[in-house]
């Protein structure tokens, strides 16, 4: 079977680009949220701990699709009052922004746990050494904790990114023109659902392979100077 794309090739390519953009945007949001969540969860200040753990528990307990729908349809009223307050004509969250926020939120909740594990894996002596050298707390975080944490957190984050990339398909439900949505449009026109969804499947598999290759090089770079123990 040679896939005859009925001239939908460029549309699918545009959808692929949209998926990549969405995944990277959500990754950026999620990394920031995950880092903040992990810092909150490992802090010695009780309310912050509570905030961090309720964030990761609640967000992880509710389906991603529900977050996408809630943020897209649920913020209409909020945005309207915000627009009134700012004196603007109208203000609404487009599908890309809603998708980025929703997926970033979910990624961040899982990343909180990954980062927390990585922070806890850094020997306490390193932090104490920083304190003994008279470094400030932000400085310790930035120059001692974060660079080391990165190496430990990377495999976990890689897994989360693969999950994130597949979750971008959910944003097609609110009409963002990424791979899924473009294939749906193509299916409506061509009446060949299997062909187009199969093509979409292979695009996702290709993206997964791409991300795996990227992760391999990132991990190799992060692990430089560390020899894997033979076992």
């Amino acid at each position, binding site marked *: 079977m040679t896939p005859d794309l009925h001239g939908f090739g460029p549309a699918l390519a545009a959808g692929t680009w949209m998926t990549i953009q969405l995944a990277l945007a959500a990754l950026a949001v999620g990394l920031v949220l995950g880092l903040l969540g992990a810092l909150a969860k490992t802090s010695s200040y009780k309310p912050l701990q509570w905030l961090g753990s309720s964030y990761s528990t609640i967000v992880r307990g509710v389906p991603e*699709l529900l977050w996408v729908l809630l943020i897209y349809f649920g913020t209409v009223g909020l945005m309207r009052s915000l627009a009134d307050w700012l004196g603007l004509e109208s203000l609404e969250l487009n599908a890309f922004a809603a998708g980025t926020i929703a997926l970033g939120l979910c990624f961040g909740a899982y990343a909180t746990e990954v980062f927390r594990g990585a922070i806890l894996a850094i020997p306490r002596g390193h932090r104490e050494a920083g304190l003994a050298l008279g470094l400030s707390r932000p400085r310790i975080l930035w120059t001692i904790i974060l660079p080391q944490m990165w190496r430990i957190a990377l495999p976990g984050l890689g897994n989360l990114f693969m999950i994130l990339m597949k979750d971008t398909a959910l944003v097609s439900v609110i009409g963002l023109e990424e791979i899924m949505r473009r294939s749906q449009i193509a299916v409506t026109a061509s*009446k*060949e659902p299997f062909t187009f969804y199969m093509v979409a*499947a292979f695009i996702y598999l290709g993206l997964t392979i791409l991300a795996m290759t990227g992760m391999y090089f990132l991990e190799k770079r992060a692990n430089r100077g560390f020899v894997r123990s033979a076992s």
Partner: protein
Amino acid sequence: MNWDVIIKWLPRLTEGALLTLELVAIAVIAGLLLAIPLGIARASRHWYVRALPFGYIFFFRGTPLLLQLFLVYYGMAQFDVIRQGPLWPYLRDPYWCAIITMTLHTAAYIAEILRGAIQAIPPGEIEAARALGMGRRQTLLHIILPRAARIGLPAYSNEVILMLKASALASTITLLELTGMARTIIARTYLPVEIFFAAGLFYLLIAFVLVQAFKLLERWLRVDACQGR
């Protein structure tokens, strides 16, 4: 927040939650049954035994569940052979499509968990079983599988929770499970925040109950005692 609306629609949401539970229960149990041969084959020493489960797992883990649902629900209709075949009454029904797809999807993940668990068994234990005169089949049934079940159980409980959340996707093929029901109610009431909030609480509640149930199961199977801790 309009609480009256939530209370008014609670019975319908409960109905949806029951369908969600049904879908998840069937998928994770059938998925487990399907995953056992897959996982064992995936952990095989011979590449030709490993190849097929590897391809299966790679496909199902590498593509979104939403896409797989569409492939089964919409995609199968493209072939006349299937439309005239005996299975068509099932493949036409969104309920069976959701169950088939979720089962195939979760089986890939569970097989991978099982492979990890089988490979995590200390080789000494398998050698000990062989040294005691157990055959290959006996070793598999009495040593490898029970041991792998305990090693893999925490990961399996994770997978069940993930499937609970993935079941929300069944709403996209017109099934009225929790999310689908919530969307239907919203189409009538125009109150997305309240209804999605209520649905979210349902998911949290179900997840909480499942986590507690798996904790009990872990205690009952004495998972801790088997880890040498």
